[in-house]
């Protein structure tokens, strides 16, 4: 086990190095002088010269990379051209919003998706099975931004049930502590803020969660069908265990392995989906930030976000891999 985790951690080194080189290259590859790229087109000569000095932009590329990497490792990803704030600060300020959104989306996806998959498998070839899988098929083929627009239109504009953009009702007093709105409203005992946050979360989370939900439902179904065909299930049934116990306790538990892999793999899709969902719902997260940065040609901000996204993605994949070994100890013998 220890050996596996060490090996897996060592494998991270070249990937992270590569990720950092690619992110570094972003500014180098952008058209024009890197110093102007980093300072912005309208920067003064002094600012440009200061940046050239600071990042050693007149030195060879490898030196530049090391200077940049050292800064990044110290948490300095440069300043945004638009706001002149530190990019790290801008990202960390928005990070809780993206986490809360993706967390809710994933929670909905896992709960509904695995449940739908289990139901489908336990009633294979029934109308329920066909309709669930039909819906799931639509779910995986749906453009997430369009689904967001449709939800917004139906539940926000026509029915007026839920708010369509933003994070919380601006009329409700709210004190920011951790930046996680739900957590903060619980800490401060602010019930109206809590309810408002939930209301603002519902539509974006459903939009973002639908694709992974559909994928999870499909994978759970096929994995369940495989498990249900195995001998130990027949034994359980022969023993006279209730069907409910057989399916939910014994079969489902064994069927969850591939589902966990899919959840891990879907995280990348979820991050990409967050970029689109946040844009649709004006959600103040990192996804919307990176798109605005791209539009404003705010290269330091784009670079910071890209590095941050890739880093998160790599870490989640690592966690999935390690979790996998914990759940299925057979893997470590390979």
């Amino acid at each position: 086990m220890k050996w596996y985790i060490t090996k897996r951690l060592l494998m991270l080194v070249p990937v992270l190095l590569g990720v950092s080189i690619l992110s570094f290259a972003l500014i180098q590859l952008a058209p024009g002088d890197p110093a102007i790229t980093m300072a912005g087109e309208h920067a003064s000569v002094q600012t440009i010269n200061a940046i050239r000095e600071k990042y050693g932009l007149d030195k060879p590329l490898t030196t530049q990379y090391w200077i940049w990497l050292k800064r990044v490792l110290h948490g300095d990803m440069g300043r945004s051209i638009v706001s002149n704030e530190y990019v790290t600060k801008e990202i960390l300020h928005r990070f809780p919003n993206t986490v809360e959104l993706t967390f809710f989306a994933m929670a909905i996806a896992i709960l509904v998706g695995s449940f739908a998959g289990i139901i489908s498998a336990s009633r294979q070839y029934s109308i329920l099975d066909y309709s669930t899988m039909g819906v799931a098929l639509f779910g995986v083929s749906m453009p997430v931004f369009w689904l967001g627009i449709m939800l917004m239109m139906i539940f926000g504009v026509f029915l007026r049930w839920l708010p369509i953009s933003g994070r919380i009702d601006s009329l409700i007093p709210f004190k920011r502590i951790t930046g996680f709105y739900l957590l903060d409203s619980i800490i401060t005992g602010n019930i109206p803020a809590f309810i408002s946050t939930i209301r603002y979360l519902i539509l974006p989370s459903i939009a973002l969660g639908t694709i992974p939900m559909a994928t999870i439902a499909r994978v759970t179904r096929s994995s369940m069908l495989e498990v249900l065909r195995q001998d130990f299930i027949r034994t359980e049934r022969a023993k006279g265990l209730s069907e409910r116990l057989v399916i939910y306790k014994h079969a489902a538990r064994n069927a969850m392995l591939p589902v966990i892999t899919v959840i891990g793999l879907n995280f990348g899709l979820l991050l990409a989906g967050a970029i689109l969902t946040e844009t649709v719902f004006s959600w103040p997260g990192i996804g919307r930030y990176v798109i605005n940065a791209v539009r404003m040609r705010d290269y330091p901000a784009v670079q910071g976000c890209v590095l941050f996204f890739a880093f998160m993605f790599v870490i989640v994949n690592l966690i999935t891999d390690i979790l996998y070994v914990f759940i299925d100890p057979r893997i470590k013998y390979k």
Partner: protein
Amino acid sequence: MEKKKETRATEAIRRLKYNKSATFGLAILIILILCAIFANVIAPNNPIPSPPDLANKLKPGFWSAEGLKGKPLGTDALGRCVLSRIIYGTRVSLSAGFVAVGIAMILGITFGIIAGYFGGWVDAVIMRFVDIMFAFPALLLAIVIVTIIGQGLSKAMIAIGIVYTPQMARIIRSSVLYIKEMEYIEVQTALGSRNLRIIFRHVLPNSVAPVIVYGTLMLATAILDCAALGFLGLGAQPPTPEWGAMLSKSYSYIVSGAWWVATFPGIAILFSVLGLNLLGDGLRDILDPRLKT
């Protein structure tokens, strides 16, 4: 050799007929291709009329008494026929998808074969690079590439093609590794055939099945990603009738009640992607039972 290939292809077609969902997917693809080719014949109106018909902006379609004659799905904010723009959009989305997947195939097959066939350090270097590319969510990587090379439809196609390359390379590599171990390749090596000859005459033709299967599935995601870039304003630029770009200002349309402007282009994307997914899944079952999970 030639005859055997033909029977394999005809057998695949025969089995495709029995796979209902794949047939449905193929039907959608054929409809899309026909729409793309004959867009100028099918579309009732010019998708980019100039000057714009602002007097008839945001008019509903056939379901409403206020609807305009000859504009069945209503008009957008510039008075343009939504249906015609969707039909012309097939041309844009489909060709963007094919070009992107084509780029991914050419690069992916090249790198995949080199990595799989030669192995050793060449393989290690290529596969580490693939790992690094996989560390970025696909859409983010596409956005990054577009940031560097510039915005626009053709740039978006290139970006998506590059982003999909590692995926294709990995698939080809594993298929090459599998074929390489076959006895007949060993025979070829023993007979003294040159590497290039073995690759082009034996390895490549035997990798066709996964290329077709994953190429089809990739086409579906390429259309999705291309629409996403268009929606974000980084892909196709107005006035190009592209499905994603058509949705990019939908917020203002739905608030003003013009639901059709925001609805129909999305349905077009949904059905194209759905059809290609069904076809890809069906082809996988037929062509390469090994890949069935």
